């Protein structure tokens, strides 16, 4: 492990240890927060008991669909806009201001449009994640050297072959910023959506525990989601590093 990694680990351990100590010493009211060890125990109990299997299946499948739609849609839309410089210049201010929009305000509208069930959750998560992927795709394609496109032309590749066999792989390391964001946003969109208005899913389970003053389950589930998202991100980070390393001179 690098020195930075050790420092990171020490900081994390200190924060958790500090919180544990503060809770146990009674400096923090139990009604507000519980010690991390109890959070972990609560989370473990909730997950291992099997009570949440249905909720997890719902959340993960919705998140997976949202991620796939965001990534594929974002890439294709980004590619299409990238090839039309005038349209791109026209859209630029909208894309730049996009994340200033309070997306959750549209949730009622999405329910009207897509009905109850996973539809509005997917729509919300995609609304949230797809633009990050569009922007990352355009930036990534900007960084593909022109000579690679010329090489594809000399080899007389078809448009689709050029896209999948040259432009996409060439841009891939630069797309990772968008992939990571789109995945994170999909989790946020789905879980937050479930939290507000849903009858199933991890977000709903957290809200249910909150409404019932069940701090152990609530914090346990929050911790579970946190660990999950962190490990997904770590995996992506590792893949990204490997890609970059293979290509760096």
């Amino acid at each position, binding site marked *: 492990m690098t020195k930075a990694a050790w420092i990171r680990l020490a900081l994390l351990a200190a924060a958790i240890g500090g919180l544990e100590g503060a809770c146990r010493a009674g400096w923090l009211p139990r009604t507000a927060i519980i010690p991390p060890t109890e959070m972990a125990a609560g989370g473990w109990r909730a997950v291992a008991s099997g009570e949440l299997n249905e909720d997890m299946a719902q959340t993960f499948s919705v998140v997976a669909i949202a991620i796939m739609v965001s990534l594929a849609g974002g890439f294709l839309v980004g590619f299409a806009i990238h090839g039309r410089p005038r349209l791109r210049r026209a859209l630029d201010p909208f894309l730049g201001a996009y994340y200033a929009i309070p997306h959750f305000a549209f949730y009622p509208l999405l329910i009207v449009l897509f009905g109850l069930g996973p539809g509005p959750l997917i729509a919300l998560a995609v609304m949230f994640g797809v633009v990050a992927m569009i922007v990352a795709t355009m930036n990534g394609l900007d960084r593909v050297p022109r000579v*690679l496109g*010329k090489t594809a*032309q*000399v080899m*007389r590749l078809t448009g689709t072959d050029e896209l999948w066999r040259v432009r996409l792989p060439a841009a891939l390391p630069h797309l990772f910023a968008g992939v990571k964001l789109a995945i994170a946003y999909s989790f946020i969109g789905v879980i937050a959506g479930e939290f507000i208005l849903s009858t199933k899913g991890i977000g709903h389970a957290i809200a249910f525990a909150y409404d019932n003053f069940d701090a152990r389950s609530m914090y346990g589930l929050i911790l579970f989601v946190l660990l999950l998202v962190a490990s997904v991100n770590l995996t992506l980070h590792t893949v990204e590093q490997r890609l970059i390393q293979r*290509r760096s001179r």
Partner: protein
Amino acid sequence: MDVHASLRGVTRIYPARAGRPPLHALGPLDLDLRRGEFLSVVGPSGCGKSTLLDVVAGLALPSAGTVTFEGQPVLGRVPEGIGVVFQEDASFPWLTVEDNVAFGLRRAGTDPAEVRRRVDYALGFMGLADFARAYPAQLSGGMRQRVCIARTLVLRPRLILLDEPFGALDQQTRLLMGDELLRLWRETGATVMLITHALDEANLLSDRIGVMSARPGVWIETVQTGWPRDRDSTLAARPNFGAVSARLWASIRGESIKALGQAREGAGR
């Protein structure tokens, strides 16, 4: 005379962009590439050599004039039978050396056994056999350029366009690669157009050398070297070798000074 590719009244003007005025980069110029000849193009930096290559290959449309290849007009698409080695590194960093070299063959649907055979031969030819499984990032700039040359040659183009292909190589390797290129040219009977800034290299390799003016590039002179087809770098020892180089330098010197002035003006803007 059997004309392989020809240009008539070709100019190329880059359109105005982002507050900069249009830039007249090339021509008007004519060119007849004879089938099987080795033509080099020399000219001062920024005179439009790479632009000329783009136009001949069909990668860019001329602003005026016509381009034909094997009797057919070239209209904004690269015709089958043309291979290009670019000035910039064009190796695919996500593929190994052998997959880079095999790329075009596989896309063309060539039989796998034949791909293997041609790739192995090209890797050996280019001195890359030990690096077949390496990624371009693990190679030197000169080796990456050789990957690009191999990738082009395995497709057996009838017209090969090379833009400063040896730019990243040291002088000795340059000479040896030049010999290899000559051997290949003789064996395949391909037509070669080589862009280079090295006057000695142009002299050594070519049947004919086109000398370009400063931007916008037009021909100022075409020099016939008169070397035998069966030649290699030992040619440099011939008494009249120096005379050809001297003639090239005499015709390009003034233009190089002009180009340097253009570059300074450009920098001062």
